[in-house]
């Protein structure tokens, strides 16, 4: 009897305890994994981006209690920019995660077929496979606000003054990381070279040659191209800029994609690289209200790893913009499905119905920080365009109006490559768009 009594009391205590703890267990949380890299050869470029992403999420949790009352659980899985590790991280985080952020074109290409099966949206802002813009074919992949092919076309348009036919007879070199990311613009540049009559040459840089690019820059000296575009990453960016300075290559002829416009990469060349330009879909706006909120709620509260002097970096503020894309997709999904704890499929809908216009940016305290864009069922990039930023020896400044890619020049190749991909991976699920 005594034993029965004590068992009953113990059970009752446990039950009451469980009931009391229930609200804590049931706290609404959205798991947002990020396949980050804060270690390895590419950490220098990864860290400020990841810091920006994390600080924005932390700010929302601290300032607003999350998104519509749901806390954001931002969780990093370290890949070291290694494709195999990236796939492991994808598998590890896909269970609870409402999205996947692969942070490498190589990893994106690996998880692209899996996303259809696992029903997890891939958010690859400004990177990945350019034909992912075709939402009918790649229903689970998103690369807003501009694709690499948009970037390549805008660079050509910029250096030609808007008339690509004026490039006829000229020579354009692409110095690129010998990696899926670096090779991504090549098909479009080759197609446009054939169409407009300029010579295109690709100059690959191997991983082991990132810091010793003398052979590549000797080739540039010998070929004497009219313009050099760069698709560099990690130590390759600093290596290339330093070699350009060393070989006295005119900086006004040297332009990079948005991942080659990083303040940290320019530090070693400093004033000598003055005039180097990159195309970028975000620019730092240090006095933006969102920056003040991040300072108040995150940095001053000791909840940020970002050094104060890096808060004005292009890459840090790009990280903030990327987290904003995702959070706005979550908000759109919450409103559409009338639920706070949205699942991965609902977030996919949110990413497909993103409307980041000027008014929205102003409302978010991010006016002028990122190009406006709008996604749809058939358009998973948004094609918001970009600006040109120029290194003044100490920081990047915006030096152009907003550029827009000539979509008519890109779409045929985009459609052909999307079809080619789907055919090669048949049976590939397609979605109907109205």
């Amino acid at each position: 009897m005594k034993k029965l009594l004590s068992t009953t009391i113990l059970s009752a205590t446990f039950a009451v305890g469980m009931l009391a703890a229930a609200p804590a267990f049931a706290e609404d949380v959205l798991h947002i994994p990020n396949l980050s890299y804060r270690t390895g050869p590419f950490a220098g470029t990864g860290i400020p981006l990841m810091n920006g992403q994390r600080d924005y999420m932390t700010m929302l949790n601290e300032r607003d209690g999350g998104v519509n009352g749901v806390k954001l659980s931002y969780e990093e899985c370290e890949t070291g920019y290694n494709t195999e590790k990236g796939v492991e991280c994808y598998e590890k985080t896909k269970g609870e995660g409402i999205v996947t952020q692969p942070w490498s074109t190589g990893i994106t290409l690996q998880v692209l077929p899996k996303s259809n099966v696992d029903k997890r949206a891939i958010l690859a802002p400004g990177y990945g496979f350019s034909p992912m813009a075709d939402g009918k074919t790649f229903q689970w992949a998103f690369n807003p606000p501009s694709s690499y092919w948009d970037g390549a076309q805008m660079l050509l348009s910029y250096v030609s003054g808007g008339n690509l036919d004026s490039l006829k007879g000229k020579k354009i070199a692409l110095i690129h990381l010998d990696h899926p990311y670096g090779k991504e613009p090549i098909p479009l540049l080759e197609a446009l070279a054939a169409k407009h009559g300029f010579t295109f040459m690709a100059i690959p840089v191997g991983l082991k040659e990132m810091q010793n690019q003398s052979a590549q820059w000797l080739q540039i000296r010998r070929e004497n191209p009219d313009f050099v575009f760069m698709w560099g990453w990690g130590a390759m960016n600093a290596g290339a800029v330093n070699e350009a300075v060393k070989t006295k290559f005119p900086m006004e002829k040297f332009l990079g994609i948005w991942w080659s416009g990083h303040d940290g990469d320019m530090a070693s060349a400093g004033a000598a690289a003055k005039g180097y330009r990159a195309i970028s879909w975000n620019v730092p706006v240090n006095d933006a209200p969102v920056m003040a909120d991040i300072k108040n709620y995150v940095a001053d509260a000791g909840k940020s790893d970002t050094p104060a002097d890096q808060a004005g970096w292009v890459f840090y503020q790009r990280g903030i913009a990327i987290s904003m894309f995702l959070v706005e997709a979550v908000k759109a999904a919450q409103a559409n499905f009338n639920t706070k704890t949205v699942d991965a499929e609902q977030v996919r809908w949110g990413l497909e119905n993103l409307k980041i216009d000027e008014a929205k940016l102003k409302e978010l305290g991010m006016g002028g920080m990122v190009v406006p864009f709008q996604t749809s069922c058939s358009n998973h990039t948004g094609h918001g365009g970009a600006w040109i930023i120029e290194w003044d020896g100490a920081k990047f400044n915006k030096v152009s109006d907003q550029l827009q890619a000539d979509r008519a020049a890109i779409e045929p190749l985009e459609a052909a490559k999307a079809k080619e991909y789907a055919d090669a991976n048949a049976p590939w699920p397609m979605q109907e768009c109205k």
Partner: protein
Amino acid sequence: MEFLHSILVKPFADMIGAPDFLLQVLWEGLVSGVLYALIALGFVLIYKSSRIFNFAQGIMVVFAALSLVGLHEKGVPAWLAVPLTLVIMLGLAIAIERVVLRPLVNQPDIILFMATIGITLFLIGFGELIFGGENKVMITEQLGIPTGSFAFEPFGGFVSIEQKDLTAVIGAVLLVAGLLLFLNKSSMGRAIRALGDDHQAALSVGISLSMIWVVVWFIAGVIALATGIVWGARADVSFALEVIAYKALPVLMLGGLESVLGAIVGGLAIGLLEKLFEIYWGQPLLGGNTETWFAFVFALVILLFRPQGLFGEKIIERV
């Protein structure tokens, strides 16, 4: 016929047609070769004295360079940061000998090799914990390394020689000369060589294995610091520097793991040949980036004829 012409005639015609460019290619190849030799020397010294293939040489380059820059960021002047970094590398050598190598004496070579992989992983984590993963700028000017360039106009053309590259070549030559003097003329150097030749015999005449290992790992640390300064000055100091250690592998295959001379000759040969091949054959015919594999293929071809490498010891075993 056209194909043969592009392989056998055109490259040489290009060399003769633009001799100033050829000179520039040779200079860049020489600089690369000296830097490869420097990395390879770190491997050779440790292998000679302990038969350990030190997988950690690459991360030691990163660790030494980050220590130097990190100390300077903390306000330590450059002239003091260099000796303090050397003290750190000495501390590292002592720690490796005490914690890793001493307990593994008499273990098979593969165990010691695996231990150096462990050291690598530890130093990656420890380095990132202390210094963070961000790129850092090498304190080139603060160290008194000139950053301008000399311009020449031979054959009516143009050749540019970076002063920091010239400093690197002179520094590397002096370091190697000092090292050769130390190995050949000092009693400690002779002890290291004796240990390399025959462990048992060296120990029987009272040579301290522990002391030699500390000295050798410290010298490898000095070489790592020199390598880190030179490579870091070309771009940034970052964990990407670790991968350049892999460039030393074909040098070691070519020169032989036990030969200081082999490391120097192998480094120079690979530096020059891979640059010439890339510029005159690789880029026009193969799309470039042949430096990634050329040195390995070249070393393999040499190994077909000399399995011990150019300067390695030919081992004859009675069966």
